[in-house]
């Protein structure tokens, strides 16, 4: 009995140590720790709200100025074409970004929830690339633009139906500084 209790403790201890292994290059995430994303505590990664208006930390002139305007472009179902009503949004975002060579933005592509998740990553990427091309054409430097596709994984609104879906098919222009 005593032998058992000790060996159980040892086993649990070893397991615990292994679970927090310093051996691995990346710490295993646990329920207590935030995801291994936080390289620097100022980064958006852990707590990004995913809306263009809040940008990264919300500090600094450019991000504040960006908050004055919605950097979100919406798309039709199964399409990555920029609709006419968003041409002005893209143009004014391009002006803002190219106006300051140190500005960095991330174009985040999204889809609605329908269909297969990894295929939707592809559709979201197409949308992000579509906006990226439009911005490049309007004089933004490549180095200023990063893209990511979230597919259907980060909806703006929960729920199903045409109204929710339309609000989720989008690219958000997120200011990183």
């Amino acid at each position, binding site marked *: 009995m005593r032998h058992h209790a000790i060996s159980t403790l040892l086993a649990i201890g070893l397991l615990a140590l292994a679970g927090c292994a310093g051996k691995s290059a990346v710490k*295993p995430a646990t329920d207590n720790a935030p995801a291994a994303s936080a390289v620097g505590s100022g980064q958006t990664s852990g707590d990004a709200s995913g809306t263009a208006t809040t940008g990264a930390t919300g500090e600094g002139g450019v991000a504040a100025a960006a908050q004055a305007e919605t950097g979100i472009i919406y798309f039709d179902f199964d399409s990555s074409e920029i609709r006419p009503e968003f041409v002005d949004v893209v143009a004014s975002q391009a002006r803002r970004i190219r106006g300051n060579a140190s500005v960095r933005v991330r174009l985040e592509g999204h889809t609605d*929830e329908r269909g297969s998740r990894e295929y939707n990553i592809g559709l979201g990427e197409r949308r992000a690339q579509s906006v990226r091309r439009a911005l490049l054409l309007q004089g933004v430097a490549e180095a200023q633009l990063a893209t990511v596709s979230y597919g259907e994984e980060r909806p703006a609104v929960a729920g199903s139906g045409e109204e929710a879906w339309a609000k989720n098919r989008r690219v958000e222009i997120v200011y990183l500084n």
Partner: protein
Amino acid sequence: MYQAMMRRLTGLLVATALAGALLPGVARAELQIDITQGVSDPIAIAVVPFARAVPADGGLDVAAVVQRDLESSGRFRAMARGSMLAQPTRTADVQISDWRAAGNDYVVVGRVLATGNAELQIECELLNALNGQQLGSRRYTATAATLRNAAHQLSDFVYEQIIGTRGAFATRIAYISVDGQPPAQRFQLIVADADGENPRIVLASRLPIMSPAWSPDGQWLAYVSFENNVSAVYVQQVRSGERRRVSARTGVNGAPAWSPDGQTLALTLSGSGGNLDIYLLELATQKLTRITADDAIDTEPAWSRDGRELYFTSDRAGGPQIYRLEVAAPQRVQRVSFGAAYNARPRISPDGRLLAYVTREGAAYRIAVQETAGSARVLTRGSLDESPSFAPNGMTLIYAGRQGGQGTLATVSIDGQVTQRLKSDQGEVREPVWGPFATP
């Protein structure tokens, strides 16, 4: 006796404290299985309560686990304990005519014994109620910690003896659990027993986790994590938590799929150009081989059983369809899905004969199966069904669906007769993936 008990209690308390502080936490989202539909003519079985070894068995009622497993398969109807006039634990004590008269086709009796040194032994016999003959017997050794798994192995034994196919009760699943509302959602990758018990958090993140995939030996999970606001593919050893980021290239890193020999991941990359294609990544050497090279979205690779072919989703024909190519000659691509305008997310059954995928019927997304060169049978009836995954015995598919606006998991048997829903008591669950048979 008292002293021994007190030492045990102290040991347990300390162990619990350690577990709480240092081990990955028990998941919040617990799954509950409902049966929604079984076969029309289930087999009647009496799983008689076993002789118990209290407190060594940790309070686990082995016969109850077995009964629940068999009933949840949809192919058995178990006798209620309250109706049992006697509860024999040995074959010699079974009056078989009584059990037959009560309508049973089979009877299971057994015993859990403490054998000292913290070991337990389960012994059981399966009897044919028609003639009293013993169909088989089993003995399992376990500890209190592994007793539940031993009970599931017992269920597998009973199932296989009667149904003739290997059971999958002693297996595990992984899935993604999501808490909260956009934009502040939290994501967890969870591993649990196939019946939803014992959930454990493998990874927690404030950014999405997707596409979990079990290695063929059941020791590792590959997955996609967006934890740095970019997608990257990781492999993580489930038992230790050891984790390696295996692809963090510019652009999309997605859809990891383990080759049958466990040495290679097929995955999706886009590079900076944004066009998704399929690659092979040799894990030991990091050698990367390009498999598709076209303007379409090519993604969601799935290996054939012999590792010679890849099935995948491509929209090269305008909308997503399933294609197949030979790894050794990847330019030879053949379309394998037809009929619907949207077919995606292929998975191959363990015996290599069936293809499961997501198909669109009207406005609804459902799970279909077909023989690899045959016509589709739609198995499900939801509006947003997705992520099918085969059980290792090939009899059942687990998949994700929606119920009352919430993401839930569900299973359907390959013949369509048995369905289950697995609900979480909190939040949404999605992307289930069924692990392999445990290596003995």
